């Protein structure tokens, strides 16, 4: 779902998700054991391959279970919906590659407005509730690297072992997922006490129980307007005491992101993480040991083949950002922290480092400023971007020749710093200024 643009300021009631046509399709499907959601928007090029992987996975690993593939579509102009409809297995359409014991319906619905992750997920949740699905999985339509065992790895922990939320673990290049490893994972882990490696996942699975919880809770009324749905969901599971599980899904394809993508990604992840601190204060403000999450397969699997990275640009963006945003940063950061940041901004590129402790203090101070809305919250998120680039520069430099284990040790050190300094966040959170 990460490929879908968000829309701002929408309000949905059930009737806008459950159109008459969609309801008729659901009536025809009836009660199911398993539901796989594939949200799309102009995904015709890739969704066929993804659906094929899902179909084979369902037929191979869950041949007896009642299953449905559900496609909430954000108004595709290409042939996405036709491709989806053709993936059904019934008495008119057969599976050419595997024998199907029972019907496997593929149904599709177009939701109103612009394509939005949140509406798609709400559609899946509404359908899952009506169909009484015991386990649901969400798979990105771009997951053309899907193998049938993904379906088993996502759904089995929920369907057979009573876990509530299954998040993925991917094999990544050591320089992929940098926002995740330098901020999202360590901070989420420190605050919510669960070592969920991919709290912002595009492939995941959840239980009927957790789905009902999501439907009922007010996470959908996020002031930012529907961004970071997956992140909010993971946080809701952690804070709600639901049973978490991680499952290895193989190599994560690397997607090149532009600078603009970074801010958008930060809105969805960092913005959501900061936003979540208010409703969950009672939970995260208690000091607790972090817990590992049961995982199928490797918890971290890094590849280290050489890649070209333009570190210099990151250094420049950090320096110029600290300079240009000085008034903004002054309203967000404490004086000592700002001074330290400004101090390292003067260091020559070869000697430049953004130390863990300074970075953690930076992140925590941004979070507390977000809470206090010292300035427009979106501006706070945008202001973090250049500082994050400085941290990324440091990460790339320090891990230039590092092995996977060494990179992991570095990330672990950062995590421990986030955990150690958690009281600092509370102090800032409660401070009057």
């Amino acid at each position, binding site marked *: 779902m990460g490929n879908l643009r968000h829309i701002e300021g929408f309000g949905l009631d059930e009737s806008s998700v459950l159109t008459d046509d969609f309801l*008729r*399709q659901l*009536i*025809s499907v*009836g*009660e199911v054991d398993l539901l796989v959601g594939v949200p799309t928007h102009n995904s015709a090029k890739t969704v066929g391959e993804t659906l094929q992987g899902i179909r084979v996975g369902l037929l191979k690993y869950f*041949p*007896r279970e*009642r299953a449905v593939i559900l496609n909430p579509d954000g108004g595709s102009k290409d042939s996405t919906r036709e491709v989806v409809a053709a993936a059904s*297995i*019934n*008495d*008119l359409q057969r599976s050419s590659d595997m*024998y*199907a*014991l*029972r*019907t496997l*319906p593929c149904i599709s619905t177009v939701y109103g407005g612009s394509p939005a992750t949140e509406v798609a997920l709400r559609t899946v949740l509404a359908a899952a509730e009506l169909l009484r699905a015991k386990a649901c999985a969400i798979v990105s339509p771009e997951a053309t690297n899907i193998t049938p065992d993904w379906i088993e790895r996502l759904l089995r922990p929920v369907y057979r072992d009573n876990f509530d939320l299954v998040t993925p673990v991917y094999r990544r290049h050591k320089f992929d997922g940098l926002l995740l490893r330098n901020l999202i994972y360590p901070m989420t882990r420190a605050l919510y006490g669960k070592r969920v490696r991919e709290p912002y996942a595009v492939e995941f699975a959840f239980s009927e129980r957790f789905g009902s919880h999501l439907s009922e809770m007010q996470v959908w009324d996020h002031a930012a307007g529907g961004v970071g749905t997956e992140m909010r969901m993971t946080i809701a599971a952690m804070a709600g005491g639901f049973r978490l599980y991680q499952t290895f899904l193989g190599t994560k394809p690397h997607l090149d992101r532009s600078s603009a993508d970074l801010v958008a990604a930060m809105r969805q992840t960092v913005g959501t993480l900061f936003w979540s601190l208010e409703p969950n204060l009672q939970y995260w403000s208690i000091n607790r040991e972090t817990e590992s999450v049961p995982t199928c397969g490797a918890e971290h699997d890094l590849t280290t083949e050489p890649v070209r990275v333009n570190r210099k640009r990151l250094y420049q963006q950090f320096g110029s950002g600290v300079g240009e945003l000085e008034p903004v940063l002054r309203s967000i950061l404490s004086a000592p922290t700002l001074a330290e940041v400004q101090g390292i901004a003067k260091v020559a590129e070869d000697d430049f480092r953004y130390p863990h402790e300074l970075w953690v203090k930076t992140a925590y101070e941004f979070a507390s400023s977000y809470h206090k809305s010292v300035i427009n919250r979106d501006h706070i998120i945008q202001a973090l971007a250049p500082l994050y680039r400085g941290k990324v520069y440091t990460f790339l430099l320090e891990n230039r020749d590092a092995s996977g284990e060494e990179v992991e040790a570095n990330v672990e050190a950062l995590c421990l710093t986030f955990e150690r300094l958690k009281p600092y966040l509370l102090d800032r959170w409660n401070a009057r200024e």
Partner: protein
Amino acid sequence: MTLGQDGLWYKDAIIYQVHVRTFRDGSGDGIGDFRGLAEKLDYLQELGITALWLMPFFPSPLRDDGYDIADYRSVHPSYGTLDDFKNFLVAAHERGIRVIVEMVLNHTSDQHPWFQESRSSRDNPRRDWYVWSDTDSLYRGVRIIFLDTETSNWARDPVSKSYYWHRFFSHQPDLNYDNPAVREEMWSVMQFWLEIGVDGFRLDAVPYLVEREGTSCENLPETHVVLKQLRSKLDQNFTGRMLLAEANQWPADLRPYFGDGDEFHMAFHFPLMPRMFMGLKLEDRKPIMDILQQTPAIPDPCQWCLFLRNHDELTLEMVTDMERDYMYDTYAGDKAMRVNLGIRRRLAPLLDNDRRRVELMNGMLMSLPGTPIIYYGDEIGMGDNIHLGDRNGVRTPMQWDGGWNAGFSSADPESLYSPLILNPVYGYPAVNVDAQKRSGHSLLAWMKRIISARKSTQVFGRGSIEFLHPANHRVLAYVRQLKAEAVLVVNNLSSSAQAVELDLRRYKGNILVEMFGRNIFPRIGDLPYLLTMGPYQFFWFRLRRI
């Protein structure tokens, strides 16, 4: 009442399958017989059936429930005499009930005089009546049917010190149909019974008549030649008689047994039956649709024979491994319920004694294209005894009443050919004809009603079928049509209530008349026709343009 003259009577028939031994003991020796069966013809007439299929009643050592015949022209003494049979036949015909008898063409008992002669010496004139070999290496790779008991299709005969071919038990040597004398003799046997007046034969195990090296020894062209010759002789000498093929094969392999309408009149549709059970358990019409879509068209005079249960195990030969595993897990959790490649259980226990499911399965049996066969006792929901050996658990005495020996026999219980069912759920005090006759809501009463509804029109026996494909895959719907008459059948395979929209635009303007209550339903218009159905409910609607 007399028999009609319609040569296609078998298309409209409701066949009742019974073993003489199991139905009613008229002599008081603990074994059912023809006198007893004749006593119960009024019951069968009242039930509404129009034909009886009798399992083998010929002299036999009974090592395979009579399918090991030792004399083709007589009656096993336990069941009476040939005169008893003739009397029974006349009585049945007087009640409008035709009689189909079993004819085991493929093999005899090893106690049959023909085999005794054949084995006696290599020079005996009947030596070539069976398939002999000096080695057991011929026809290698041909499948063994009774896997639980046999390890080879060859058995060494200690008398003639050579091997004889047997596709079934080793005490059932296969006849050699390459020998013209055998073919002539078997026609002579059939002629014997046709002249007495039987209305048809169920020809047992027909795919296996001829053997050829390098083949599966099943469904060979030479076998079809033999069968066509028999049919030709039948048509030349007897009118209105019928041949029914027992060939447990895939529909495409079965199709040649109809020839061009010049081989069998009817054949069992074996693969459909397990898929009906599968569809019901899966709550999904797909398995049923899959097999029906694979079923080829057959010549006009021909007909499929449909059944839910019979004297054998619920055979799972004609299913995939995945389907077989599913059927075992869902219908035969206790391994004692399994035998060979199948499940040895009756209809009611298979369906957890759920009246709704029993009715739905019978509703499909009566409305899908073909002639339905009811296995004795299933009309009252009799149970089984999986602790009896082989398939004897589904061959226990008919339960007539709650009294002595269930009304089956006046003999001492110890002398009955089989123990009665005694458990609290299916035992004869709880499940018997007498008790069910007293209630208008019993399964027996319901079976009479559905048989009557089926017989009220020829559309089920002779009509075409058009499947509807509603999006709700839990609903199996089709229209049966014969000339201007059309019946819409809608089956809810689900354990929960369902809504279904049917595309009936082709029948726009018709009103629906429900065939049991005769209530009318709204007229068909341009919109999808919406029906709501209770769990396992089914409807038969006449489409009437009024």
